[in-house]
């Protein structure tokens, strides 16, 4: 942990030194900012997630359009240096307001966010390393896992029905002990509570993770760490629609937008458990017809390198063919317990053997 902090401080300092050096040598300082444009976001077949390519943009102090951005970046760098030094964090919103007192301004928070991200990729650090935390909390975790935050130990079976909430500062959390064999992550809190209520954590020796929709950065980092540090398989059970598929896929292979930090967030070995188009047919689930936007999205997924393998191709095509989608909770058609008593055992059996 201390290591990450030291690296961050060193890199921040280096940015300032580079500029001073150029000026001393009578060169116009230029900063290389790795490009985050679509053309520079590349799917890495080995790493099984998106990474940034070799392209970069130049910010030159001699360019009237770019010079303000350099000033903004250096201001943010000093702000972050101060945060890291003092072991504090701030949200991007707070950063934006703090900038009110600076000699350079930002048109809106959008702009300060972008310059902050420029700094991340320029230094090759994550936002969290620089003390800039997202507002959003992570997922709810329930099950036999003990973690340490600072000097406090928390047992995720004893944090209440709504579980242990993954904090934005997940990198500072230490895994102390656990007694589970797998992790089951679900898209909705409705399904999370169902699994808790039906004691799925006991039945499947599992952690139950309630993703609350698209997984937060902290959640993705948590799942990656659980997978790599504790060697637990991750299973994701979402709604059977393009959005549910993609929530799972972002956990598995990262997002294009965050290509520069996917190596810290993606869990390539995580598995999608369902709901699949095949499930819709086999379990005769209540469905809704695919909307135009669903169809469009499914067709996009077919062209997405992350969905290259046969399982996904087959399921997406099948869904397009039947023209229907279904939610996780639609298993309630067969009674509230059905999902835990029948569906999950069958699916786990299938995937683990």
């Amino acid at each position, binding site marked *: 942990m201390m290591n990450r902090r030291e690296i961050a401080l060193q890199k921040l300092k280096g940015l*300032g030194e580079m500029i001073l050096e150029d000026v001393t040598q009578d060169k116009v300082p230029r900063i290389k900012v790795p490009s985050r444009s679509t053309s520079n976001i590349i799917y890495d077949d080995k790493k099984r997630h998106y990474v940034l390519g070799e392209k970069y943009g130049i910010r030159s102090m001699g360019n009237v359009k770019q010079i303000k951005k350099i000033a903004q970046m250096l201001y943010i760098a*000093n702000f972050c240096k101060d945060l890291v030094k003092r072991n504090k964090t701030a949200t991007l919103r707070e950063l934006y307001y703090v900038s009110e007192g600076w000699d350079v301004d930002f048109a809106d928070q959008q702009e300060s966010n972008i310059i902050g991200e420029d700094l991340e990729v320029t230094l090759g650090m994550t936002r969290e390393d620089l003390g800039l935390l997202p507002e959003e909390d992570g997922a709810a975790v329930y099950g036999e896992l003990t973690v340490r935050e600072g000097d406090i130990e928390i047992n995720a079976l004893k944090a209440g029905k709504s579980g242990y909430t993954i904090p934005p500062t997940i990198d500072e959390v230490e895994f102390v002990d656990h007694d589970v064999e797998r992790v089951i992550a679900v898209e909705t809190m409705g399904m999370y509570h169902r699994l808790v209520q039906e004691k799925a954590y006991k039945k499947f020796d599992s952690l139950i993770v309630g993703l609350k929709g698209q997984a937060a950065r902290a959640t993705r980092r948590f799942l990656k760490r659980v997978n790599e540090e504790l060697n637990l398989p991750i299973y994701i059970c979402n709604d059977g629609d393009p959005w549910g598929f993609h929530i799972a896929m972002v956990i598995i292979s990262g997002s294009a937008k965050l290509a520069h930090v996917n190596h810290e967030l993606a869990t390539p070995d995580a598995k999608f458990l369902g709901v699949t188009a095949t499930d819709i047919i086999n379990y005769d689930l209540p469905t809704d017809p695919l909307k135009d936007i669903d169809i469009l999205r499914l067709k996009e997924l077919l062209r997405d390198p992350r969905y290259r393998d046969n399982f996904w191709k087959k399921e997406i095509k099948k869904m397009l063919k039947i023209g229907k989608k279904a939610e996780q909770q639609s298993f309630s058609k067969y009674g509230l317990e059905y999902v835990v008593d029948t569906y999950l055992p069958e699916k786990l059996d299938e995937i683990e053997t």
Partner: protein
Amino acid sequence: MERQAGELFEEFQELTASEFFRKNRQMLGFSGKIRSLTMVFHELITNSLDAAEEAGILPHIKINLKRVGKDHYILEHRDNGPGIPEDYIPKVFCTMFAGSKFRNIQSRGQQGLGCSGCVLLSQMTTGKPATIISAYKEDGELKGVKMSLKMDVKKNKGLVLEREEINPDGTGVCVKLHFKEVSYSLSEQGAYEYIRRTMIGNPHAQITFTDPTGKKYVFKRASNIIPPLPKEILPHPKGVTADDLIFMAKHTDKRRFRSLLTSSLSRMSTKKVKELEKLTNIDFNKRPKDMTWEEAEEIVEAFKKMDFMAPPTKGLIPIGKDQIEKGMKEILNPEFVAATTRRPLTYRGGVPFIIEAAVAYGGNAGRLVGEQRKTEIMRFANRVPLTFDQGSCALTDGVRSLDWKRYGIRDFENAPLTIFVNIVSTNVPYLSTGKQSIAPEPEILQEVRQATMQVARKLQKHIRAKKAAKEEAKRARVFETYIPIIMREAALLAEKEKPDYKPLLQKVTRKAKAELLGESNDE
């Protein structure tokens, strides 16, 4: 109860033009109180301008409009033109379809309905006679006569009620007419706006107008140049129809096809007749009276295959770029004005026309509606403002067809913008008798578009130049602002001293200037 034809035809009768228009006054543009009065102004001003110019006089018109009751006005319209010889006065004012402008020349009015129409309206609504004072020169001698006239509708003729000789100071005509069922308005369709627009289209004219409240407006002339008199031009071969040829053949004094053609058509040389002879099987020594329809059609068909010089344009007298700009400056006092007078073109194969367009921006340009200036399109045909039926007019359509955003006008409807379009032609293709809108001939539409684009591009340059000047000043300050900040922050970040950055500042400032001149390929 079947009836025989004879019975049904017992009441068969013929009408005169005056009777016809008495029953159909809307066909003269006399519909609606405001429009009716504007049409009267239009007819009288048009006639005065035409007459003065034909006589080589700088026009000065004095108009006095008195209100004597609800919707009841007395109009006195006085010009300094050549006057009308006594014999012609009843015809000009009381006979419809009578006039001196049926030739193929560019003139404002053309139908022989103008003055007589006004008298008809006056008489229909008030029963009052028209009072005309005409002062004119005959054999160098200045004569004057004052007449009181009524129109005999059944005969389409004038009745002289009173006549009196007078001693005038100079030539000119003064018309005094009573009207009811008309109304004076300051609206876009009203008489005041009509005069204002007339001034823009005729910067050489001067109009003094006293309105019903007694307020006197003096619209001064912006130019002392009388527009040259348009010459009559012969029809162009590409523009004639078989019917036209037959008509010419019937009324000519020439003795052969050959001479008929060279004398009645423009660009029709002996060489061209020879070319024509080869293309047809017609004996061009035949007498014109013997021309058959088939021969006329054959000639027209042959014309289509031949090449002719464009029609002569001496008959077309545009206002001229400079004159338009002068007129617009005088009336609108704009921040920017640009005008263009395009080269003559033809429509329908052979009718020559010229489009003139102008834009005025800022100042008093645009029509003030409440607090907001709204774009106004002023349409003219041979310098005459077109006030009604804006919606269906080719001039409006042409102007609106531009993507004004591309010319720096974001909200076209709400801009301080006056757009001027004038079509000059010996034969303006009006859509209806009201002479208020131009038919959408493709060549005209296209030319209006081109002309408007030309002035719009100049406007765009003006708007851009205004912006660019601002931009340059802004850039200059950028480096001086940011470089000290960056050096301070970089030093703080590196935890070191600030180096001397003055050389850097000089270097980048030089570089940026080069950039502004377009030499950079950075970024």
